[in-house]
């Protein structure tokens, strides 16, 4: 799962957002927010509007989190999976971490080419009578079209940075990102073609059953316009509740420039 260690996650989050960590021990984390993070997290728009109007610098707040449930009665904000604060942070990450262009950190001694990859992390939602999600992390090499799944796990093992390393240059993609994206979607769709869709069959069955009950309910009244409207509305409600659908939504993605060696290793593995 994504969050084995909430404490480290938060430390990383605030560090990545340039906030100073003022205390960090045994499940207690104190952070001095930057003005930007204060505006995002502390929900005091009037203060910031006022400060800006007057041209003052503003004083960002400090905040203490308790991640160790045994210490939840101590001063500070108990934060846990499910707490509104954590989900507020998740929400900020949706936009903060959506698009990227990243380079592998290497230290070559001579001019070295970096190979472009398109990485797309997507969430597939299956909605019918019930709902579930699945995350697919797919990378496509934009020169030879090689595709691999679970690419995030591989990238996790590399060191990556936002600027191009010295002595490196990037190879221009032969496959445009947009075409690459379409290939990835095609891949997901063929994956879905072969998927067990008994959940959708069951949803359709329920939908039809409830429709029949409804039609029977209004059987003797279907001359009346008023009842007709009622029935139409109920039919819509049944469709909304049961009609199976699948959505593919991109969580985040971007272009990754990796060394030839790493690229070969990735495709070789596949």
């Amino acid at each position, binding site marked *: 799962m*994504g969050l084995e260690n909430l404490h480290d996650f938060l430390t990383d989050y605030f560090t990545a957002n340039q906030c100073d960590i003022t205390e960090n021990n045994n499940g207690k984390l104190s952070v001095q927010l930057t003005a930007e993070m204060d505006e995002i997290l502390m929900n005091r728009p009037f203060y910031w509007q006022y400060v800006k109007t007057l041209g003052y610098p503003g004083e960002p707040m400090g905040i203490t989190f308790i991640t160790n449930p045994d210490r939840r009665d101590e001063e500070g904000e108990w934060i846990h999976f499910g707490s509104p604060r954590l989900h507020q942070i998740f929400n900020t*990450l949706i936009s903060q971490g959506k698009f990227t262009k990243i380079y592998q950190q290497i230290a070559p001694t001579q001019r070295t080419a970096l190979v472009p990859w398109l990485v797309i992390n997507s969430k597939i939602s299956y*909605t019918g009578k*019930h709902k579930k999600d699945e995350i697919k992390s797919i990378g496509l090499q934009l020169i030879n079209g090689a595709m691999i799944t679970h690419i995030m796990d591989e990238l996790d093992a590399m060191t990556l940075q936002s600027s191009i390393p010295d002595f490196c240059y990037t190879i221009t993609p032969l496959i445009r990102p947009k075409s690459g994206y379409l290939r990835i979607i095609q891949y997901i769709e063929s994956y879905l073609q072969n998927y067990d869709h008994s959940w959708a069959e069951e949803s359709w069955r329920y939908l039809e059953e409830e429709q029949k009950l409804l039609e029977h309910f209004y059987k003797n009244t279907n001359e009346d316009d008023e009842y007709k409207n009622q029935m139409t509305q109920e039919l819509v409600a049944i469709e909304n509740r049961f009609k199976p659908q699948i959505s593919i939504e991109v969580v*985040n993605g971007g272009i990754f420039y990796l060394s030839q060696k790493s690229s070969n290793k990735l495709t070789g593995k596949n």
Partner: protein
Amino acid sequence: MNIQLNRDQEFIDELDTKLENEGSFSSWDLFRMSYRSALATTNPDFKGLSAPKRLPHVNFLQHQLDCAQQVVEEMNGRGLLADEVGLGKTIEAGLVLKEYMIRGLVKKALILVPASLVNQWVNELSQKFYIPAISQRRRPVWDQQNIVVTSIDTAKRPPHRDIILKQEYDFVLIDEAHKLKNHKTKNYEFVRSLKKKYCLLLTATPVQNKLIDIFNLVSILKPGHLGNYEDFTDLFGKDRKNLFNDAHLKQLIQKVMVRNRREDTGIDWTKRNVETIWIDFTPEEQSAYQELSRISKESPNFSSITYTRELCSSREACYLSLRKLLSQDREISNRADYDNLMKQIEQLPHHAKAHKVIELIENTDEKFIIFTEYRASQLYLQWYLQQHGISSVPFRGGFKRGKKDWMRQLFENHAQVLIATEAGGEGINLQFCNNMINYDLPWNPMRLEQRIGRIHRFGQESDVNIYNFAIRDTMEEHVLNLLYEKIKLFERVVGNLDAILSELDINDVESEIETIFNESKTDGEVKIKLDNLSSVISFAQDNQTEEDFNGTRESS
């Protein structure tokens, strides 16, 4: 297989634009964390509840978790939650709503509850479930994506009504849904015409009088599940008892209803100790009481029974009412007697019951709730307690919501005693207190049940002590002995009394008893009539207990 497929059309265009224009990109750290938070918030299974994992601060009971799961998995989000009082229907409903919100299936919800409970629902949803619910008052927010709590009376009133009926709700909840049982009412029609995906109806009494009640409730959730009106009456008739006797009907109902009973939950409910405290009037009080009974019989009017009741509560309550009576410009044959009685009351010592209150409370630090029927007695008691160094706060139904919450807090943190009048009995939970004095008994057993329910409910950790005050040789003795003892109200843990009373066509026990007192010539006559009334109630009670639903969870 026909499955609609929705693709993401925007992402790649945005990425392309950023790449072309050298836009800003997120760092690897933020990118990676964003991916991880998506993983963490993913629900990889169709089945099971993910809500409890996110609410580690709440201890859910097994029957509550089972109920929520059954509603989501088997009833597909449309169900009747009909647990007995005090088992946590609100919690079950909150779990269902939370589950759907987590899974992204509910964004916009309408929660219709009695006006007196709006705040409590909002608090519970936000504190227990982290659901940012809004209570709807003046500022209209109907058309936004949110979770709104309001009363059905507000919602069905113009201009709200038309706006609300245009909204498409993902989730609609109706608390106290038994009020919808009649399909000809405006409330029923209003709820039926709401556009809704998921829908929960909450009631402790799903069938009150007529078998058709349940048909009407189920027809909101799943029209046709019980056939149409003609099928239903042809098949199952009109007899309420068929709900328990007809196996087929029972089975159908179980598909849309969850009903837990206390004994099914396997929880150790704390005990309810009930003690009657008999109190003797002082000789002065007794003679005033007899004088009052005599003269009010001579010039009977419809309030005379009230004056004697009031004298059993406090001098002040009775005195104020008598003064009001005498100040009216009208013919009272024995006005002089009343005037003398007033003087006699002025001379009375402190009330025998008030003494008893001090005796009970004085030597303990435990918190007490005192219920009285009269404002004047409430004020008197507050003053009298203060004279004895006992801190108390008043509580009345007429208090604004904020003041109610504040008084509750004062009571929890500072005062030893809360003195409530009857109207304060509903919609406030005081389970941190486990002692209750019924300073005077209401004549309606339902109201007593509600009073006790304020403290003897889920969350109460200690045994509950209920002290019922009654003065010997007064009307209080009759009511206690003949009504309450006989219907064993104090021993039963939970009441289905309202159902019984409405079946007996007794809408108002209180006025029934008043009539008995007013129209009887002698004490003996009062006793016989009260006795008859209680016999009827307790007979209906025994019948009802036998035929209540058994094992409604069989289906799951």
